[in-house]
């Protein structure tokens, strides 16, 4: 894959392993990676190797094969290079790059899982699994019928359709990135939608006959998941 600055984002060659690890100033990284340096600069190879190592470690619990890891690496590396102008210097450049690459990889994996669900009714299975996982005695004794009823009423009366759909999907564990894809919007917009829904529901519950302390009481009884 060739990035926007004309460099390959293929995995690094073994020669990269011969470069000693050096801590470079952030300016050196940016200069080298944004086109100010030599085409085959060692810093590119060092970053490439670093990102690959980070992803292998960060995704070690995901049981991914080499091919899947290589694809994620390609996409992550490309995104890091495309996003250089969003680096603000709040950390060292390599740490920033590692975090960006990991977000890209996780987002890709979430989308992949969502794609699979289109064919296997994954959402229902996941929802059922979550329901089972959280079913214990404390769950069943926690919510008074009045509180449940008030919450159901508030969901129906206080939320817009998009808020209701997004909130319920969020509760069922559907990744925000997947909800955003379905809505054709950004993840930040989905977060805002669900956040506003939560604020509305909380205000409605507190204003209802159930009373001000009901939310806290429910949690004390075991509402936490």
């Amino acid at each position, binding site marked *: 894959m060739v990035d926007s600055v004309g460099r390959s984002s293929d995995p690094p060659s073994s020669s990269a392993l011969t470069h000693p690890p050096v801590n470079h100033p952030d300016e050196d990284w940016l200069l080298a990676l944004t086109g100010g340096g030599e085409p085959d600069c060692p810093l590119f190879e060092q970053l490439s190797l670093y990102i690959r190592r980070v992803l292998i470690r960060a995704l070690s619990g995901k049981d991914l094969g080499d091919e899947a890891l290589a694809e994620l690496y390609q996409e992550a590396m490309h995104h890091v290079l495309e996003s250089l102008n969003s680096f603000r210097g709040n950390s060292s450049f390599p740490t920033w790059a590692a975090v960006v690459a990991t977000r890209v990889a996780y987002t890709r994996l979430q989308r992949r899982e969502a794609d699979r669900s289109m064919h296997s009714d994954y959402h229902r299975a996941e929802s059922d699994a979550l329901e089972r996982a959280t079913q214990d005695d404390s769950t069943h004794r926690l919510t008074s019928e009045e509180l449940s009823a008030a*919450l159901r009423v508030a969901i129906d009366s206080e939320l817009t359709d998009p808020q209701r759909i997004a909130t319920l999907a969020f509760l069922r564990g559907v990744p925000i990135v997947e909800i955003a894809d379905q809505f054709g919007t950004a993840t930040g917009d989905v977060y805002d939608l669900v956040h506003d829904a939560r604020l509305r529901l909380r205000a409605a519950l507190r204003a209802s006959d159930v009373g001000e302390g009901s939310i806290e009481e429910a949690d004390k009884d075991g509402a936490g998941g």
Partner: protein
Amino acid sequence: MKIGRENLCRLLRLLQVTELEELDCEGFLRQIPGFLERSKDRAAPSLGAYRLFVHHLRICAECREEFRSLRSVPLRRLL
């Protein structure tokens, strides 16, 4: 729209920790590098400065998982 009892419970828990001001996932992402470096420097990040960051960890399971995996990576040693 049907909502099961367990999801109602989950929602109630979320309502209890809902704040007027919250970080979304992108805002959270922007703060991760600084938080990671400060915590690895053993200069514990001030919880005040990272209040919204920490709060987002309570709300968002996806960001929580991602952050946990990143925190387990020895970033400096891998460079």
